[in-house]
């Protein structure tokens, strides 16, 4: 067996092992606290992957995406509490509303230059937060302003109501959502809309001269991204059973999503996941163990990591990590370095 294909086999084997590991984790890791951390990790990986559709592939910098998380969460929650609609159904409604809102906001703003687009998304995100914080009711639906909404606890595991006692179902739900989001991202990058989107994001004039209606593709990417992001919002609501504007609609949340994707590597498929894998544990650790002594330390760390990554690896940590992984593969399979295998 030549070294090239041996390396490829090892690569496939490692990936299978990782997949099995991730899928069987809850069977032996039973602590709900740790499972919760992992669930949040996957949730952030999911949300940054959906963010990536606009922020990575379309080449713009959305800094107000938490608004769409909020739209998803509030829509499904309000529909559930006011009309008894199962969150599984409400989820789709939330997604649709988010997509429409995203498209409406996107049409005028995606034409703006990078910095101005970023500012407009921030303004929109903050606008939504202020709006929600000031609304107590909308018709028969209770919004409750800044104090947020508590979702009534339904005892036992209730699939229809999207509530479970143990963390395990949540783990699998978010894992599957993440895989689907990754698949969607991967698939789009290989078909014509993906090429057009990337081209339009990089050199809009050149893309237009090649037949690409850049604005149309950007708006579609925005709508898709907002739709998927809102689904994550419903998940978050059902996980924590309590949503309020500061948590779900803040500028901090929007920025965290952007940071993770940027540090991991925007525009790549693995980037957001890697970013989440690195930053979330660091942030959680700092927050849990150090915030009593040094409040805000985890955000200082986020900021410093961001600065360093932008200074030395602006395309994200995906690149050096991929090279490192490749080096490991070489070592294990005994391949001489330089024999790159395209996997």
């Amino acid at each position, binding site marked *: 067996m030549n070294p090239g294909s041996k390396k490829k086999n090892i690569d496939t084997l490692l990936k299978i092992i990782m997949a099995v590991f991730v899928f069987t984790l809850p069977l032996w890791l039973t602590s709900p606290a740790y499972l919760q951390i992992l669930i949040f990790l996957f949730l952030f990986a999911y949300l940054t992957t959906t963010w990536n559709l606009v922020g990575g592939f379309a080449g713009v*910098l959305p800094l107000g995406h938490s608004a769409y998380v909020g739209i998803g969460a509030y829509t499904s929650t309000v529909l559930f509490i006011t009309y008894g609609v199962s969150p599984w159904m409400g989820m789709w409604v939330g997604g649709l509303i988010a997509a429409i809102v995203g498209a409406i906001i996107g049409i*005028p703003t995606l034409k703006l*230059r990078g910095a101005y687009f970023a500012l407009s998304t921030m*303004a929109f995100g903050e606008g939504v937060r*202020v709006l929600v914080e000031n609304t107590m009711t909308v018709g028969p639906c209770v919004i409750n302003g800044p104090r947020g909404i508590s979702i009534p606890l339904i005892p036992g595991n209730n699939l229809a109501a999207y509530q479970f006692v143990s963390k395990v179902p949540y783990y699998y739900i978010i894992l599957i959502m993440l895989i689907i989001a990754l698949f969607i991202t991967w698939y789009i990058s290989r078909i014509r809309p993906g090429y057009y989107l990337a081209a339009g994001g990089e050199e809009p004039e050149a893309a237009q001269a090649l037949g690409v209606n850049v604005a149309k593709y950007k708006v579609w990417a925005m709508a898709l991204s907002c739709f998927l992001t809102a689904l994550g919002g419903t998940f978050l609501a059902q996980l924590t059973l309590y949503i309020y504007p500061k948590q779900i609609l803040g500028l901090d949340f929007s*920025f965290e999503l952007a940071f993770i994707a940027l540090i991991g590597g925007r525009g790549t498929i693995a980037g957001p996941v890697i970013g989440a894998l690195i930053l979330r544990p660091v942030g959680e650790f700092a927050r849990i163990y150090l915030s009593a002594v040094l409040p*805000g*330390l985890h955000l*200082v760390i986020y900021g410093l990591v961001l*600065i360093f990554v932008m200074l030395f690896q602006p395309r994200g940590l995906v690149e050096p990590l991929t090279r490192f992984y490749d080096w490991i593969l070489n070592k294990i399979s005994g391949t001489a370095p330089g024999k790159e295998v395209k996997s």
Partner: protein
Amino acid sequence: MEAIIQAIINGSMTGAYYGLAALGLTLIFGVIKVINFAHGSLLMVGMFAAYWIIHLTGWHPYAALFLVIPMLFVFGYALQGIVIKPVLEAQREVREPTEVIIVTTGVWYVLDNLALMLFGAEFRTVKTSITGQVFFLGDYFLPKPQVYGVVITVLTSGLLLWFLKYTRMGKSIRAASLDRDAASLMGINQYRVYNIAFGIGAAIAGIVGCVLIPFYYVFPSVGVIFDVKCFIIVVLGGLGSIPGALIGGVIIGLIESIFPMFMTSTWTELIVYVVFMAVLFIRPAGLFGEKRDW
């Protein structure tokens, strides 16, 4: 009726120091074409610097200016040189240097939370000789610190305009803002110019800090409030325009003081965002900016 006039007076004075705060940003944004999300943090640093100087020495806040200005200038210069310049250089070819936005966001997070770690979240105030004092103009009252603030704003803007128009460095800055490559071909060290522009922007933030101290709370996230507002003002007034920054500031100040008379103040916040978005869609160049291919 009287209430409205008082509101107009308050709004204009508030608007003046909003404009001053936005001044540094429009310079940086206009010259280096960098979105500096850390601008609010610079303001916060300026305020804390002023706070500690006054707290420790008991000086009059405007005397503290003599220390704060050079301190902040050096800080801004260093920040630009160490953190921002490498990113700018690497992104020279790129059409839209978003990495710079990201780096400055990192700086914002680091500065704000370092302040939180070092100084704690409590709101501080300093008692100065002018705190709480008021001028009377007929039936209307004008708090002294605010009036001095307006004076300082006008002085600073005038000084800045003079500097940009008549001094060599000022002209270099303007040249670099119009076309950085052409400027560097003319022998202008563009990065040194950027450093200085940034330093000036930071120094102005320091001035704002001193102006605000007599009547504003000092706390680590004070910058955030100003940050977003300053960007809105800069867009409204026109990127790189000094009179635009001041007028934009006054407009926002007036909106903030008049609208709450007719609706809750939090709805006013929303109005500001709506105005911002409207400007972006209708006339992204702002009131005084140049038209470009937005």
